[in-house]
């Protein structure tokens, strides 16, 4: 009963049903190798969705993540061209991503500008900056060092490093969100900002940290993206921010803040990733992908709203008893 009521369980069932449906006609899609490829393909979405989750939990939104990713990716490619060793590049893009996130966060925290306005502005600024850096030029595969390109694709125990990073960050986020004061502060600041102040949590500072986290992950993903696809230019990952928000929404992260889980978020990203990878396999034009993910978003919000609908204040004693029983006590 309580298992069926959980959003995560339903999403997991939906993913299994989707896989089953595809497998019934195209069994090769569910082979371990194919699934590993889906996971690897979806890794950037998972990484960004986790960062976005932290931001959305605090009642904000970050529309600049894709531009941040693109800028950091380009910087990684340029640093590589300048002969900077890979570990330093990794550090640099994570720091740059975090700094770009911090810029968003400061405007939200210290100036109280709504996050949607801030990140709407910074998404164009960050992407425009790539043009200023390169004059619109591309960095192509032959301009990148072999080590630079090889790192995300190196296979360890059957999975490429890129996928392992997504797995590790997911695990880290699961710990962060449920087992650390900062994680709980994300939920508190978005769930009830008024009460958060009473418990000594600074809402603005918490939002700032969420932006920094989202930015750092976008920076890391920027390198992974550019290295995996072996190309960097102004428009990489254009519009990706909407996929990221979509993954969060499908994963049950409440846009009003304060509710949602890491498991849901990752499954939301996987759901979109499976659809994207399955379309060519089952022979549907990839042009269907956009409409399908749009519909998935709408179904997910409608579903989330229905499961969160406030029944009213609980005053009747029997209503409380009923509620607790349904919650699976």
């Amino acid at each position, binding site marked *: 009963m309580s298992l069926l009521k959980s959003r995560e369980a339903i999403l997991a069932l939906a993913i299994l049903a989707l896989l089953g449906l595809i497998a019934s006609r195209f069994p090769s899609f569910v082979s371990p190798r194919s699934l590993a490829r889906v996971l690897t393909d979806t890794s950037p979405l998972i990484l960004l969705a986790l960062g976005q989750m932290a931001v959305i939990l605090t009642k904000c939104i970050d529309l600049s993540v894709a531009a941040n990713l693109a800028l950091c990716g380009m910087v990684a490619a340029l640093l590589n061209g300048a002969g900077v060793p890979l570990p330093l590049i990794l550090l640099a893009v994570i720091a740059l991503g975090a700094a770009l996130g911090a810029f968003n966060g400061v405007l939200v925290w210290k100036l109280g500008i709504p996050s949607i306005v801030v990140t709407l502005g910074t998404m164009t600024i960050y992407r425009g900056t790539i043009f200023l850096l390169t004059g619109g030029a591309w960095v192509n595969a032959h301009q990148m060092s072999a080590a630079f390109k090889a790192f995300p694709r190196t296979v360890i125990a059957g999975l490429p490093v890129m996928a392992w990073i997504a797995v590790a960050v997911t695990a880290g986020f699961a710990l962060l969100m449920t087992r650390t004061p900062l994680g709980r502060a994300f939920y*508190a600041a978005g769930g009830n900002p008024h*009460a958060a102040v009473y418990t000594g949590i600074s809402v603005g500072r918490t939002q700032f940290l969420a932006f920094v986290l989202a930015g750092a992950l976008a920076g890391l993903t920027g390198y992974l993206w550019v290295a995996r696809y072996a190309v960097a230019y102004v428009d990489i990952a254009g519009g990706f921010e909407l996929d990221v928000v979509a993954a969060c929404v499908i994963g049950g992260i409440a846009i009003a803040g304060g509710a949602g889980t890491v498991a849901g978020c990752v499954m939301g990203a996987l759901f979109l990733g499976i659809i994207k990878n399955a379309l060519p396999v089952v022979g549907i034009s990839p042009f269907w992908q956009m409409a399908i993910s749009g519909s998935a978003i709408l179904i997910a919000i409608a579903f989330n709203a229905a499961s969160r609908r406030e*029944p*009213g204040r609980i*005053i009747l004693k029997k*209503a409380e008893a009923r509620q*607790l029983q349904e919650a699976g*006590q």
Partner: protein
Amino acid sequence: MQATPPAADGAPVLSLRDIVKTFPGVRALNGVRLDLFPGQVTALIGENGAGKSTIVKILTGIHQPDEGRIIVDGTETRFPTAQAAGAAGVTAIHQETVLFDEMTVAENIFIGHAPRTRWGLIDRRAMRRRAKEILAGIGADLNPAARLRDLGIASKHLVAIARALSIDARVVIMDEPTAALSHKEIAELYELVEKLKAQGKAILFISHKFDEIFRIADRWTVFRDGAFVAEGLMAEATEAGLVRMMVGRSVDQIYPKRPARIGPPALTVAGYCHPTEFEDITFTLHQGEILGFYGLVGAGRSEVMQALFGITRPSKGACRLGDQVRVIRSTAQAVAAGIVYVPEDRGRQGTVKGLPIFQNVTLPSLARTSRAGFLRLAEEFALAREYTQRLDLRAASLDQDVGLLSGGNQQKVVIAKWLATKPRIIILDEPTKGIDIGSKAAVHDFMSELAAQGLAVIMVSSEIPEVLGMSDRVIVMREGRIAAEFTGDDMTPENLVRAAVGIEGAAA
């Protein structure tokens, strides 16, 4: 009237001196003082609007005083954040439960100071175990893993108390701690207070129930209109004396209730039910009558009123207006049917801050002041002027943002807004909560006048003197049901409280 501190206990743990706090339009505190002693309960007494909640916010680091000193153990200090207050050992159990619905009971109790494992992670097992211990200590049978949103208001209150106890506090503030508790739970709370006293904690007890104060407090302090009036020992106090200091005049002067000419039924409610909020609500309201609704905070009174006003829909039941059955599905339909509602939560539901006074007043009457859907400002100003003057509104201009007015004047704007629609039934939900004495008298006076003119009035109030002073008849609600109804000589404070808290054996 200033009493000397009691001899044996020595210095106060925490003292406030000359605290001033101003908000836009209101001077909430004007040079108040307060002393809290270890092992003693100090009752802070004052009407709504006396500055009690502001002092709590200053003590817990939410607000900073404009002037004045906070002295802990003889050393002057500041509480720039809630954390600083917590670190100094000040904790509060709030009137409104400030908690997190999406978190579990244990997480709510320990957020901000959860036990950690060796690795610095939150130790959830230890957290649940300790939560269970604390809850058991206050006699609360709650599962620490239950999500808060699944709990009722009384249970949430117990979680708030458990949270305050989970912090190793030296000063515990209890802001109306019994407002939502049943008789049994109140008895347990008293035991708890005794336990805390024995541990040497200083307790600030905010309540306007005198029986409670006389039962558990050792000392008293009275505030009125944001100013310190007097302080002393409970043993030397009398109820009449405290009331006089609280209101600044004697009680019977305040309620200008005129004799009612009760007319035919204006509204008949039959068997209203709601899945979680109330059930089996049946009553009749007459023209010219003021019908009081009394009960504990969270007894479901506002919820019933909001169902009558079309905010929520009852799952069962019918209501009759005059002699026709009406189904009210929206507030627009309620207003059209002549039912209006002055909400308790003035800031959120009453006034539209950001709009000027006149636009607030004309909001439900735009159809009358406009022509073919186009605004006519002159008509709007005329209507607003007429009704704000009748209520003796104090404002710089009708074009002023309503948010800049004091609580009492905002309430007058809300009432003016509804009177301008010429209603037949007016529901006032805690109409004088948090407003100054002058405005309070104006609201009471006006309520009497309206009833005398034949309007049917429902007044929801948690203040017994107000309920008794203004109502022709009183309905008492408890846990979402009508517990009792009193008229005439049965309308006594004892009867009301007994029905509201559900004393064992009576009306179950």
